[in-house]
């Protein structure tokens, strides 16, 4: 795995935590999947059919899922600024600190290089952190995709890649989950007039 791919994933994940525009965040996540897909195809053409399949699946995912989320954004055009959101610099600081803490605490787990292991766990952590520090439900759905890209990075770094059945099943599940998340995002926007998840805090004991 090249350093450019892993750094690209980490930096674009951090960018999603910072950017304000939803369409830009969606484009960044699509670019992540596209980059991973192209890398897998390039590797697969030399070494493994499974990697080539993974690459094709990732590229399909890079096109379909962001398109679905863009459709949701378009249906809820008038997004108000979310007042409860932490400032961008604060979000970045929290995310970098938390991701570094997670990444530093993991032992080696058998991938080709320590750098890829750290990047995979870091991107997964940044996906979860996106959902924690961003208030808009659409950004939380993007967190799923970022976390899954961290998983794909791990899968692509395995010798021979992941079994094709798991690859395809994973994408099918992801399409279902993101479709359901998009439906929720649209319905929440319709009910609350905003995609602010902090408005969804009525259920407490």
């Amino acid at each position: 795995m090249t350093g450019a791919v892993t750094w690209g994933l980490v930096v674009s994940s951090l960018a999603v935590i910072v950017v304000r525009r939803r369409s830009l965040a969606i484009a960044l996540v699509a670019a992540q999947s596209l980059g991973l897909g192209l890398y897998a195809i390039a590797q697969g053409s030399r070494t493994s059919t499974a990697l080539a399949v993974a690459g094709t699946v990732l590229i399909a995912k890079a096109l379909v899922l962001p398109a679905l989320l863009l459709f949701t954004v378009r249906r809820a055009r008038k997004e108000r600024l979310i007042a409860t959101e932490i400032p961008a610099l604060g979000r970045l600081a929290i995310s970098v600190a938390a991701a570094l803490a997670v990444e530093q605490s993991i032992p080696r787990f058998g991938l080709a290089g320590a750098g890829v292991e750290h990047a995979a766990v870091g991107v997964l952590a940044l996906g979860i952190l996106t959902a924690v520090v961003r208030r808009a439900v659409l950004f939380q759905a993007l967190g799923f995709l970022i976390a899954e890209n961290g998983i794909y990075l791990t899968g692509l770094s395995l010798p021979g890649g992941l079994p094709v059945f798991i690859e395809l099943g994973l994408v099918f599940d992801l399409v279902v989950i993101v479709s359901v998340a998009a439906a929720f995002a649209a319905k929440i926007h319709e009910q609350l007039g905003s995609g602010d998840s902090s408005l969804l805090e009525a259920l407490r004991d």
Partner: protein
Amino acid sequence: MTDVLLVAVPAVPLVGALLVRLPRTPGGADRMNLIGANISTVLALTASVVGFVHGARGLHGSWFVLDHAGACFLAVIAVVGWCSAMVSPTYLASAGKSLFTARRARAWYYTAFYLFWAALLALALVKNLGVAWLLIEATTGASALLVAYSGRRNALEAGWKYLVLTTFGLAVALLGILILFAGLAPHGGTLSTLDWQSIARHAGGLPHQTALFALILILVGLAAKIGWAPVHNWLPDAHSEAPPPVSALLSAALLPTVMLIAWRVVLTLGVAVPHHLADHLMLAFGLASLAIAVPFLWRPMAWKRLLAYSSLEHMGILALGIGFASPLATVGVIIHLAGHALAKSLGFYTAIPLARHDPSSAQRAPRGLARLSTPVAAGAGISLATLSGLPPSPLFFSELLILLGGIAAHQITSVSIAAVLMALGFLGLAHALIETLAGESHGHRWRSGRTVRLAGRLTVGLTLGLLALSVGAYLLADSHAGASLMRGIA
């Protein structure tokens, strides 16, 4: 022949999910639901019997393993699924607005319901950790829509919380599975590398650190879906906001079935980590869940929310039983699983007439039901009495077996803490039982409408099941069933 039967078990509800969309009238959809539920249940129960008849090692096929434990879980999912399917038309008739357009709401409900049920039935059978993960993730998509079915703001919040927390939890579990796969790659590097038998055979050769890291990630990730504390936040909200038949399926079938996967992970991968760390992790989840749940059982709470916290308590007890890892505790786990499923389903189904006659029960604890409706009071009373562990309920025997199993495993500290927490939980629910049945109530006696009659019929049927389980607990305690169950799982 068995292969065909086991393929049909998840395939029939899967086809049912498509067929329920065909009828153009609500009555037609209900009839299709009735047919689909009956066939699915007969097939699943037949498969379950086949699983019991075969030896402890069970049946192994290209994609399935049907052992004694799997057969128990399959029977529970079949019974709870059937009851929920039967109750659904009554719920839908009084449901009002929903997340979907009025014309297609019922078709969407049944589609999501059958997809959810099919995934659960398949989950009890699969022999591969990777495929199990995919099925667990698939349950999330279908059940999140069902949780938010009413379309109310609170239901949307609950559904969204459920979707986000469980999806991220499962992402963490998947990382653990990939780490395990990487470690086991020298033994194949194909899908079958993640078969339970393959993991059990080769896990001993994994480096301790890799095995431990994978185990922790998988269990913590699955814990988010099972609803074990401290990653349980979605559970009370989803259970209380979902339609009652779905709440029953979530609490009585989904949580235990995902726990079966966690159990198989502990038994297969646990051997690769030193000092019984896998068992200790289960004990930690169990005690944490009990400790978090018990204070809520002491508070006056809306009916379904009380049942939700009781689910947290009982998942904790089941985790303890698995963690004690002794034959006696294992028998306790199976009895507890089945008893909890029947009692909890009955509790959730009772919520239908409650919501119909006392809509405020969605916000505050019901009181004085005995004066208002005998069938509803009987359903609520038997459900709460069983869940509290009052003798002679099967949960009394199962909790006793789990604690005795813990003593047999020399886990005296954990047993002592668990016994105190269980006693406190019992007192909390016993108080809720008295208030629910005999507390001060206002209003006239409820007339015996469709929902009340349904509660009465369900109470009779499920109570007979609970009594049979109590007898079963008495007989199984002195048998070799525990050892047989443990051998089969791994």
